[in-house]
């Protein structure tokens, strides 16, 4: 029987692991989404980005709270407003033994725009680089056209690959329009086949798409050695079977256990559940254009009036949504960047549940009897997305704004949102950079997609004053000054309810009792961070 035999084995293995980490055994992880490739520059997506960090190092690391820490770059500083200098770590070797130098970094920067058929390219992180200087083998100097404070953050997303993996014809010279001295780059398939060495803590052993991805320890790793000799990732996208695989002991650790199972998993004395705030905010966007809007059958758009938007925010009981729908896997939000992240404004509290004031504001705005509105939402993208939208619809209906929910699968929802078919929609935003400029730029800046501003602002919100402050923040290199400007931008958005934040999602992980994991804001599942429990 299972408890007789494997129970004892696990116990012994656990004791050994605690007593002597060097003897630690293998780790099996159940993933909710499989990476589409191991090429670190192919597809900018959470499962891919989390996976490549096992094999490839970046110049800079993001810790569990997305704060930056040294990796292949041992230090960095801004020499002036448009120049960044990175000192590289010495003595690092790639998996094939080749030493790491600045040449590899330049080669990597050259490759990023050259990945064929990339579904979501990493060029958004490298395009600010105008020119590159390499004073010596271990110094990198980057020049930008305008002040660009996010340079270190952006570089932390780029995995460094060795120059030896390409076909070189001479010394590499970085040119924005196309580098010189490089004839060919490794193909995405080469990464999947394990042909491109990295410098990270693990080596690729086997990648069978849809079934398993096996990594083995890199014995020559320059940094802190991981506890695991072998790590096997199994993609199990369905929630029930993923939980079952953990219960059955087929995997030791799973990401994203479904919220309805968490209470049961927490009670199981053989298991451990950890959760932490993510960088994702769930919000409702309200079309604030001064023009008729498709979801409301009125000649004038009531949402253009900030009082109406405030009323709709006050009408929502965020705490009830957290307790009843989210199984407490969320934290009510009063702004669009999570607590603890760079730029978060501690003065902005979630709007209280106050239907009385809401009704008063509606009456003041000239809608004492309310109006009818359609709230769009995806039904398979965020935690309990449709249920949250249904709850919001009921709260709005209670103050007289009769609300219909229009829920569709994510692929249809996002296309319709792009065509501006919704007057109000529920969606989420993960701050990829881990700081406030990401949601501010995309969600609430005036829509100018050609400049990369307001790219996801499908609600026509535009506050020129906020845009001005944000622009200033984006050009301020000094961290303290920039954070203050970002906080001011958030306050300006909150002042006229440019967007209605609902909550920040908490990300859960479940594992055997013998393991621990520090929850990550970026929702990454990283084997190096999974450790035996003390």
């Amino acid at each position, binding site marked *: 029987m299972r408890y007789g035999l494997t129970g004892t084995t696990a116990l012994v293995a656990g004791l050994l692991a605690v007593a002597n980490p060097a003897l630690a055994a293998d780790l099996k992880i159940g993933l909710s989404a499989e990476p589409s490739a191991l090429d670190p520059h192919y597809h900018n997506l959470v499962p891919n980005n989390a996976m490549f960090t096992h094999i490839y190092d970046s110049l800079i690391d993001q810790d569990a709270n997305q704060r930056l820490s040294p990796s292949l770059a041992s230090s960095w500083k801004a020499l002036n407003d448009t120049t960044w200098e990175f000192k590289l770590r010495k003595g690092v070797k790639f998996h094939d033994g080749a030493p790491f130098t600045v040449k590899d970094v330049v080669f990597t920067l050259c490759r990023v725009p050259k990945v064929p*058929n990339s579904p979501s*390219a990493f060029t958004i992180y490298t395009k600010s680089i105008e020119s590159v200087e390499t004073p010596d083998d271990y110094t990198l100097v980057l020049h930008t056209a305008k002040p660009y404070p996010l340079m270190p953050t952006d570089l932390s997303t780029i995995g460094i690959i060795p120059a030896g993996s390409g076909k070189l014809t001479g010394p590499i010279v970085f040119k924005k329009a196309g580098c010189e001295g490089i004839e060919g780059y490794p193909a995405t398939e080469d990464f999947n086949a394990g042909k491109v060495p990295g410098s990270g803590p693990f080596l690729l052993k086997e990648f069978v798409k849809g079934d398993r991805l096996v990594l083995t320890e890199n014995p020559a790793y320059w940094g802190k050695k991981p506890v695991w000799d072998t790590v096997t990732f199994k993609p199990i996208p369905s929630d029930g079977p993923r939980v079952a695989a953990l219960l059955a002991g087929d995997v030791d650790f799973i990401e994203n256990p479904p919220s309805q199972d968490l209470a049961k998993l927490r009670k199981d004395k053989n298991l451990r559940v950890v959760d932490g705030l993510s960088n994702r905010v769930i919000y409702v966007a309200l079309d604030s254009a001064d023009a008729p809007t498709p979801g409301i059958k009125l000649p004038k758009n009531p949402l253009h009036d900030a009082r109406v938007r405030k009323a709709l925010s006050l009408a929502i009981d965020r705490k009830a949504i957290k307790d009843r729908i989210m199984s407490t896997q969320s934290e009510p939000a009063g702004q669009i960047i999570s607590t603890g992240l760079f730029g978060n404004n501690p003065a902005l509290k979630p709007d209280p549940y106050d239907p009385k004031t809401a009704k008063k504001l509606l009456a003041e705005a000239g809608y004492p009897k309310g109006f009818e509105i359609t709230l769009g939402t995806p039904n398979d993208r965020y935690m309990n997305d449709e249920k949250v939208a249904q709850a919001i619809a009921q709260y709005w209906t209670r103050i007289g704004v009769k609300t219909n929910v229009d829920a569709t699968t994510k692929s249809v929802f996002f296309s319709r949102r792009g065509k501006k078919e919704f007057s109000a929609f529920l969606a989420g935003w993960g701050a990829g950079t881990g700081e406030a400029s990401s949601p501010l730029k995309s969600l609430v800046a005036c829509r100018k997609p050609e400049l990369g501003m307001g*790219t996801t602002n499908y609600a026509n919100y535009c506050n020129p004053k906020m845009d001005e402050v944000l622009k200033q923040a984006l050009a301020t290199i000094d961290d303290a000054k920039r954070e203050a400007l970002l906080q001011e931008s958030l306050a300006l958005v909150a002042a006229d309810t440019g967007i209605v934040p609902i909550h920040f999602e908490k990300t859960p992980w479940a594992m055997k009792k013998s393991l621990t994991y520090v929850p990550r804001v970026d929702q990454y599942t990283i084997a190096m961070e999974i450790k035996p429990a003390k």
Partner: protein
Amino acid sequence: MGYVINRLLQGLTVIAVMAVLVFVGVYAIGNPVDMLISPEADQAEIDATIARMGLDKPLWLQFLVFLKGAAHGDLGTSFIYNEPAVRLILERFPATLELALAAILIAVLIGIPLGVIAGLKPEQPTGRGIMAVSILGFSLPTFWVGMMLIMIFAVWLGWLPSTGRGDTVSFLGIQVSFLTVSGLRHLILPAVNLALFKTSLVIRLSRAGTREVIGQDYIKFARAKGLPESRVILVHLLKNMMIPVVTVLGLEFGSVVAFAVVTETVFSWPGIGKLLISSIVHLDRPVIVAYLMLTVMLFVTINFAVDLIYAALDPRIRRKESA
């Protein structure tokens, strides 16, 4: 000969019509770029991605490009994996085929003996019991049964693994799992799950066949000759009642592969069903189109073969067609 050409043309017409329907249908759902690209990308980046995927061209031009590729056996390149869609499907096909064959084998090995017993003892508790169980097999949803199998055999008893395919070895150039202990252990639960519905079908068919054959003169004659009952059943009865079972199972094989979608999802079996589901979720259009086109071609080919066999067996069909 005219008949063959006629049928061939019909088959080609079906493929052509389906190509248009599938292409237009799939291209009407959503916009893959919205699903794929990082939401932080600016307009230039979005436009570049759209152009890379050829989605900036008008629909008819995209269709022509697709047709041109299809004529060379290239049904497009996956948006997500950047690999030819046909290769992705063929890579995973052995896993599904192995699962389907294992399920059919289980259905035959369990279904036929139970069906014969139920047919021989239709009024006794054994016969009635078997029939009652077969109703369960028909009516329980595959998804639920799969989860139950995992709960019982993987979670509570801990006998079998709950997920994945286990170790594979190369057999005739194809990766198979039934030749390794780990692979076999991984194969059991999903195969049983997939076999459940077919087993019930086989039980019903064999029972009906048995009841029909048992009343025939040659059975009575064999018994009158004094042959042992075991020989009567194993030779005379089994041989004759197998014909409808084999016919139906042959026809049902395609649907086993189709039903595998649910089982593959529950057991994370890396076959084409799981690939199809994830491609639909991520709007990986080329893979969806390639999968549907390959399925259409498979069924057209089977129908064509069946038509030819019918014509060979029954001359009247040929004459009617040419008249």
